[in-house]
């Protein structure tokens, strides 16, 4: 109990931020040798590259429409065919990956940061716990998509509003995870000793406890990324997603919903791309969990 904070750090549980170089290398090699994780990472990187590089190298315009090129089936010229505006679906899917990934990433960042803050404060300060978690419980009492629809409808159309809606919908989840980790660590020995050494609450919380409770959060954020991509598509499908003609994946599928029999490619091709991306994210998250979560 009389050890200094510096010593306390060295006896912290083995997590990423407190490991020496050899341990880090061991984890890295574990990560690299994990088959699912490698596949997942490859898929995700391909989508990310397509999203970043695609718009730069592609000739087509995702908004270019013409009633002469409507409903063309997939061909060498139009890989995924064209939609009812005569727009090239492949071009739209590539541009859409940009948008959908950006939305997913923004949701992860906002829900992650917000959830971490709320969860950390709630987990550390017992007085705040009751209020903060009641609000989180109230948000959790709505099915997440229902909540997102409500918020998106309230705020109106717009990419930023979709991000806000999904972030609010997923924030309680991250808050709970962080709160749970913080609560276990709050009474850990190294925290106690830091407290005795006179370290301030905020410093203890953000310098000592939080870095040690990141692993489950990081894993969960991968899944939130995946859910956000799916939910964004669902919101677009219900008409409260990013405003058209923005080529978000959900918009592309929503545009094709009335033509599934005559022009199934409008729906099927982007659906497969969404499925693949989410699959990649899930594989990646599974891999992270396998490697980082000490329980398995």
């Amino acid at each position: 109990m009389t050890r200094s904070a510096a010593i306390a750090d060295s006896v912290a549980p083995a997590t990423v931020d407190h490991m020496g170089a050899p341990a880090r290398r061991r984890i890295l090699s574990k990560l690299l040798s994990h088959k699912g994780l490698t596949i997942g990472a490859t898929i995700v990187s391909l989508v990310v590259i397509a999203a970043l590089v695609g718009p730069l190298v592609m000739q087509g315009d995702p908004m270019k429409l013409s009633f002469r090129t409507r409903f063309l089936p997939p061909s060498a010229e139009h890989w995924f065919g064209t939609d009812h505006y005569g727009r090239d679906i492949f071009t739209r899917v590539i541009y859409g990956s940009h948008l959908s990934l950006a939305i997913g990433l923004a949701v992860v960042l906002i829900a992650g940061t917000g959830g971490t803050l709320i969860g950390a404060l709630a987990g550390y300060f017992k007085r705040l716990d009751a209020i903060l978690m009641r609000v989180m419980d109230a948000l959790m009492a709505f099915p997440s998509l229902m909540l997102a629809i409500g918020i998106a409808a309230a705020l109106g159309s717009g990419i930023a509003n979709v991000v806000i809606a999904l972030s609010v919908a997923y924030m309680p989840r991250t808050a709970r995870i962080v709160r749970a980790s913080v609560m276990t660590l709050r009474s850990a020995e190294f925290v106690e000793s830091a407290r005795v050494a006179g370290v301030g609450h905020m410093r203890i919380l953000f310098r000592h406890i939080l870095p040690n409770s990141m692993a489950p959060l990081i894993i969960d954020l991968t899944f939130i990324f995946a859910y956000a991509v799916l939910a964004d598509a669902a919101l677009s499908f219900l008409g409260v997603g990013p405003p058209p003609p923005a080529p978000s994946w959900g918009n592309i599928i929503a545009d094709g919903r009335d033509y599934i029999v005559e022009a199934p490619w409008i729906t099927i091709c982007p659906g497969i791309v969404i499925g693949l991306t989410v699959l990649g994210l899930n594989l990646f998250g599974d891999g992270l969990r396998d490697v980082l979560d000490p329980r398995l």
Partner: protein
Amino acid sequence: MAEWTRRRLLATSATVAAAATLPRAASGQAAAQPKPGGRATVAMSAATETVDPHFSRSQVARNVLMHMCETLVTIDERGSAQLQLAEELAISPDFKTFTFRLRKDVPFHNGKKMTSEDAKRSLERYARVSPEKARLANVDRMTTPDASTLVVELKSSMPSWIELIKSPASPMTIIPAEECDKDANQVRPISTGPFSFVDWDGVTQLHGRRFADYAPNKAYAGRDGYGGRRQAYLDEITFAVASEASGRVAGLQSGQFDILDEVPVQAAARLAKDERFKIYEQTKRSINVVPVNVQRAPTDNLLVRQAIQAAIGQEEAMAIAAEGAFALNPSFVYKDSEFYPAEANRLIYNQNDPARAKALLAEAGYRGEEIVILTSGDIPSLQEVAVVIAEQLKSAGMKVRLDVLDWPGANARRNDPTTHNLFSTAYAIQPLLGPFQYQRLFSGPSNWSFYKDDKAMEDAWQKLLSATSKEDQRSAWQDIELRVNNQVQQIKIGDRNLNQATKSSITNFVPYDGIRLWDIWYS
């Protein structure tokens, strides 16, 4: 006293009825004997917002309620006024006193016979609860000298009053007097129509049943618009909501539905190849329009508005938004309307001329100010028109942003001139009913272009409203259309047709404003 009698109405409706029967005779079904019985389920894309006829006003509501409801005056195939529950209407020369003589022995669905008291109380309730109660704002008093006479006295002369009360949008339905004390939205459609209301689950299913004691209007030869001689043959009717078009089509193929509203063109082409189904093109569904906000920059500048008018290619917009099922028409009324402007060719329309648009923009000193197009994603064709014209404006060098909301959200924002420049929307009943329904869209303090004063326009409306002959009305309406067009206050996009489909065994179906399940039967 100007007698607006049954005979005169018959004279006009006879020609229309003949026109309506033409395709029937051509397809050789005229000989088929109507056969009573059977049930039909109609798949619609949306649910009605209410079953209280006085409280309703949407197209979907009309689709359902016009089977149960009847009014003193209704509309014929072309949208002109026609007597329904009244057999005679006498209008005083000062256009202040309207005397309706009601048809006798017309029973309500509850068995009671309709009297003038019911008519009076219904109109009173309408004036209390209807969103369209303004139609009765000019009523001074109503009296019932006897059980079949209703006298309506107006506060001021109003030659076009019949044009207001004929509308089936929020129909001035006659319901039993004892129902008339109920609050808005509390009344079921108990009226005198050929079908009686059974139940509605509020979301997906509404049931009706043939009204055995229905009294058809013997003054007419056959079905005509919402009026004429109506006769129900089907025993039971159901209105089902299937919001996905693919779901409606699959439902028809599987036998779940018998009649489909709003069939996508592609699916219609496929269904047409199947002998089990028949496809109809409904030509009087709605028109796509774009009201232009003349208050907010940059569309406060007439030159910018003219540039927009020059840049828009209505044909491309309609080809995409209406799936090819459309008619180009610069006017705000349908081409067969009695009010169609004789000089419609003077209306600027379907230019698709980016070069001219650019020249106009340069003249206007346009420097890339953002043009916001407001629309609703709930109705795909509105959004599609917005998307297409956005691209057309962009290629003429304009900076455009789309603001897409759900329907109520878009309409709330439509009310606020600071939020948008263009609004992609549709008018459903107005082009069928004619000029008078446009009054508050085109003129007055709450006009949809947000102009503050436009004397030429207001004068033209005065001329229209005080006109007592068809000729004067037509000429006034033409002035209004030209003014809207050259000031670019509202841009007409096109007449949008829709496909409807039925099982082949359904006979004598003719598309109209709403689906009509009377005068059709299974062969």
